[in-house]
């Protein structure tokens, strides 16, 4: 009885506190989980930089009447456990209506289970594992998946007359889906995959793998890795005299790669949906603003985050100042032809997979250029 009474009193007190708060300008918070320390922090940094630019642009363009939108950044250290802790924290924070992040598929998927259970819309700018959006109706992403990229690159290789290829991939969820999708498509298109070599994250010595590849002697290599691994791999491959044609996942599109690997990176073929030299005024506006504010040319990861933030803000605006986690999810699901810097984005009404356009590129004399 006493307990019941106490509950009622507390409930009434809470209600009394909540009503005047609701009558004023509401604060809507977007949670952003991303690696800000640890060995992936440079990805988190560019996400935050790009997201801040987008938020400022949104506010400058009038923002949202009746509500004040802010972002709460939390550092997941690129660690699945941390990712889950943050997810729990965001779910408990009643002011948060939607979440952006995380960086890689492993952490994003670990957090996604919590968001799925609690009913929190989650939009990752980069998680490209095929299973990510299959977790629940609350997951979205702003990047084309390996299920699209793998077959695209396999077809490209076959067009160039390559029939024997080997795959070198990082040993994580993303690497496996990158390698798997490519291998299946390459075989389906009549090619032979001689070997698939996985390496542990943070490996810096690829000489053993290259020696093994020299023995198998494929005509082309498909690289499922990020630019730092890519730079080390390409340098050591050159050292050991491997001359197979190089193809890579879009994750290798990063100016740093060319700086780190030098001439060893020349001749790499890859696809991407963002090029900072694209004359499109939207892209140029973003590139100029990013350069002024942070002193460097934004990479595709920055572009990915910039658009993810944009899609989120559009959806919040569509849902109105009384936005809830439910209404935000529905608004996100209706995203159609969002005009971003990574191409027009539409979420498939059934699978929620994004549809985008990609371009073919290669590295020549230390520059990314459109491939013929």
């Amino acid at each position, binding site marked *: 009885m006493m307990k019941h009474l106490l509950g009622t009193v507390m409930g009434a007190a809470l209600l009394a506190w909540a009503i005047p708060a609701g009558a004023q300008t509401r604060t809507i918070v977007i949670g952003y989980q991303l690696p800000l320390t*640890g060995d992936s922090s440079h990805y988190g940094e560019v996400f935050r930089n790009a997201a801040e630019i987008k938020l400022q642009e949104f506010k400058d363009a009038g923002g949202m009447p009746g509500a004040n939108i802010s972002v709460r950044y939390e550092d997941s250290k690129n660690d699945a456990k941390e990712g889950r802790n943050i997810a729990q924290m965001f779910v408990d924070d009643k002011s948060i209506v939607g979440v952006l992040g995380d960086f890689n598929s492993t952490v994003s998927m670990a957090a996604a289970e919590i968001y799925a259970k609690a009913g929190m819309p989650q939009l990752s700018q980069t998680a490209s594992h095929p299973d990510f959006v299959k977790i629940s109706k609350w997951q979205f992403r702003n990047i084309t998946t390996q299920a699209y990229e793998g077959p695209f690159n396999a077809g490209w290789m076959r067009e160039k007359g390559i029939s024997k290829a080997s795959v070198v991939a990082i040993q994580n969820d993303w690497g496996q889906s990158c390698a798997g999708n490519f291998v299946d498509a390459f075989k389906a298109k009549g090619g032979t995959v001689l070997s698939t070599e996985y390496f*542990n994250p943070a490996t810096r010595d690829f000489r053993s793998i290259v*020696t093994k590849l020299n023995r198998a002697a494929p005509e082309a290599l498909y690289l499922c890795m990020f630019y730092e691994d890519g730079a080390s791999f390409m*340098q050591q491959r050159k050292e050991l005299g491997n001359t197979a044609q190089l193809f890579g996942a879009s994750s290798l599109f990063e100016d*740093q790669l060319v700086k780190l690997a030098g001439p060893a990176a020349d001749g790499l073929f890859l696809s991407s949906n963002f090029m900072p030299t694209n004359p499109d005024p939207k892209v140029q506006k973003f590139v100029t603003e990013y350069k002024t504010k942070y002193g460097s040319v934004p990479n595709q990861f920055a572009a990915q985050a910039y658009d993810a933030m944009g899609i989120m803000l559009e959806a919040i605006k569509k849902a109105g100042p009384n936005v809830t986690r439910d209404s935000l999810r529905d608004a996100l699901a209706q995203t159609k032809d969002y005009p971003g810097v990574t191409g027009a984005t539409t979420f498939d009404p059934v699978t929620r997979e994004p549809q985008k356009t990609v371009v073919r590129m290669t590295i020549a004399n230390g520059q990314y250029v459109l491939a013929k």
Partner: protein
Amino acid sequence: MLDIYLLQQIINGLSIGLVYALMAIGFTLIFGVLNVVNFAHGEVYMIGAFAGLMLITWSAPPLLGVVLFVLAVGAATGIGLERLAFKPFRRFRDEASLRSRAMREATLLSSLAVSIVTREVMTHIFGSEMQTIPQAWLLQHPIRIGALMITDGDLVIFAASVVMLGALQYMLFRTRIGLSIRAVANSPLGAQFVGIDTDRAIIATFAVGSMLGAVAGILVGLYSGTITPQMGFAPGIKAFVAMVMGGLSSIPGAVICALLLGVAESITTEFLASGWQDLVAYAFLIATLVFFPQGLFGVGRDRA
């Protein structure tokens, strides 16, 4: 069976092993004297690499000049590290404190703390991405021997290991400071009783161990093309495994075990897959601990 590719794999393995060995030398020296693991050794290695790289980008001295500069930076870092993480725990000179396990474990944690703080501060300043190294400085020029391929970096690292090991043995067995270092390693209390300045010996150990660590950092950085705030962590773990396998305080033992680990890793890649190589390294460690509790080259000693 033993074809050219397998031979190449063994060479690859030896060069990986030399990288671990370079790091293990300084690591084992400090352990041998203080009987604690210096978790910040990987950060000394990283600071050595960054200091060398900064000198390289600022002006371009010959490689030997870079090495001398890094030696100085390493010594300073080592002395600073000792002051920060180890000295505060040596305030008490009585026998109970000197033999106290808790005291030793406290320095283990304080060195870990220094290591984490240093790494994150460096990440904050330089970013966690790989630093750009001028192409001409990379020790990656291939040298062809028949059908086998090695790089100039392999030779530099091999030479550095030999010089370091030789110089260290000379210092430990032929000089006065080496004698006092060995005395402290043998019994800190006994050393004090015969009038050895133990503080000085310990500081000297840190300076020398860190000089070796810092030079290892810049050489391996130029060799692998990877200089990042995180670069000390993975080889640090392998150096630790090599040290334990080698019997904790035997420097030549640690070097041999480091080479063994390197070759085991590349052979694993050849016959299984690259993803298994850490498993093999740790399996070696467990097997050593089970069958040779003193390590492969260790001698029993009082660790109470």
